[in-house]
């Protein structure tokens, strides 16, 4: 008796889902593409929104910035639910470990007085800014046209609330387990002179009818505030006896680099779109002209307060460097649109 072993290939009837086949043909595709391409409904809406009968429920006209095909843009990080959650869970685990370390050794409570003031009057109030930026991202999550854009906004919204939580936890740790410092920070956010330009900025971005304009506006502030507070100031902290500050800001800085990846790619896609590129570049230029001076004013106020408390920090000088870098980056991603 002899056995002959042979292997037999069973061809699957289809390699991937129809939404991917329609675009790329029948070949194995990534989970990201399967979960993203053409997922958002485009037709057969039963009725128009009761609050806006000039538009469909999902409509490209919710923003002046448009893509001929929203799926010509894909998230460079290729985040869909699982990789996003895994990635961020790891980030927050790391943050927790760092914070536990800081708490065990009471390093935050031992911060020099000037640094405590900087934290409670500049850094901690930014959790309210994060919260406002979350609302702006949620607007994008609802009104962006195309799943590839919309899901990036959704994840950004979750990230923002995560950032606000990180800041809150630091505040609680500095306040030795009480919410006292967070209350101080909230009063600062509501009443202090130096925070009003930023508060006004984010509140106006929140009520922008055009979701994309709000998103780009918030990004203009981000690209000034994040590098100054979470990178440049972090280096000052290391040499100035506030190593604890450095340990938790690195997460916010890491997050900002990650945020840049999808947002830069999106702005580039808008600026270079074959059908709408020219109009998009004009709109982007207008958005920058409108919001950038306000963003700059808001960031300058913060930098001044930092410099008043920590004369060696040079935050205003750092802001000037950051501004130049942000302008160069903007010119690069838009192909000199603005």
């Amino acid at each position, binding site marked *: 008796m002899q056995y002959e072993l042979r*292997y037999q*290939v*069973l061809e699957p009837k289809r390699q991937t889902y129809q939404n991917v086949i329609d675009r790329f043909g029948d070949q*194995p*595709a*990534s*989970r990201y593409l399967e979960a993203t391409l053409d997922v958002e409904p485009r037709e057969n809406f039963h009725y128009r929104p009761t609050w806006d009968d000039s538009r469909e429920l999902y409509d490209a006209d919710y923003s002046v910035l448009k893509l001929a095909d929203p799926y010509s843009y894909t*998230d*460079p*990080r*290729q985040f869909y639910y699982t990789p996003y959650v895994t990635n961020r869970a790891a980030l927050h685990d790391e943050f927790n470990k760092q914070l536990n370390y800081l708490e065990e050794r009471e390093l935050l409570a031992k911060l020099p007085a000037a640094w405590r003031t900087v934290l409670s009057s500049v850094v901690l109030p930014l959790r309210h800014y994060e919260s406002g930026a979350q609302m702006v991202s949620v607007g994008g999550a609802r009104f962006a046209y195309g799943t590839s854009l919309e899901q990036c906004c959704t994840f950004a919204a979750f990230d923002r609330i995560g950032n606000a939580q990180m800041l809150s936890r630091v505040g609680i740790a500095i306040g030795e387990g009480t919410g006292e410092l967070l209350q101080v920070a909230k009063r600062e956010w509501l009443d202090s002179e130096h925070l009003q330009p930023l508060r006004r900025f984010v509140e106006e971005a929140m009520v922008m009818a055009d979701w994309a304009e709000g998103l780009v506006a918030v990004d203009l502030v981000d690209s000034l505030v994040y590098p100054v507070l979470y990178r440049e100031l972090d280096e000052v902290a290391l040499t100035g006896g506030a190593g604890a500050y450095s340990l938790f800001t690195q997460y916010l800085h890491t997050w900002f680099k990650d945020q840049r*990846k999808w947002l830069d790619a999106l702005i580039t896609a808008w600026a270079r779109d074959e059908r709408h590129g020219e109009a998009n570049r004009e709109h982007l230029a207008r958005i920058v002209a409108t919001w950038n001076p306000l963003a700059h004013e808001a960031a300058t106020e913060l930098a001044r307060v930092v410099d008043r408390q920590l004369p060696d920090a040079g935050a205003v000088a750092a802001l000037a460097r950051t501004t130049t870098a942000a302008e160069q980056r903007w010119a690069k991603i838009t192909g000199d649109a603005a």
Partner: protein
Amino acid sequence: MSETLRQVGIDIQESEENRGLIAAIRSDNPELTVRHLPGLVKIQAAGQIVINRETVEREIGREWETGEFQLAIVSFAGSLSEWDDDRIIVKWEH
């Protein structure tokens, strides 16, 4: 003296992570033939196959070290004539 170009080939394990790698190899090597076997993707080309770190990073959306290539391959036919931080080239050297 004319030489016919011999085929070089790489067999890559088929998985979600390696799909971007395969897409990158495809875009860098237009002459490629790709065959899907169960659990395996066989890619072949005449002469050489080039893998650029930058292309792979663009496809998979994260940083990638050329050393990670070892985790993806099952076997290969040819010699690894170049393997540095930015590029891997598979071709026959003799």
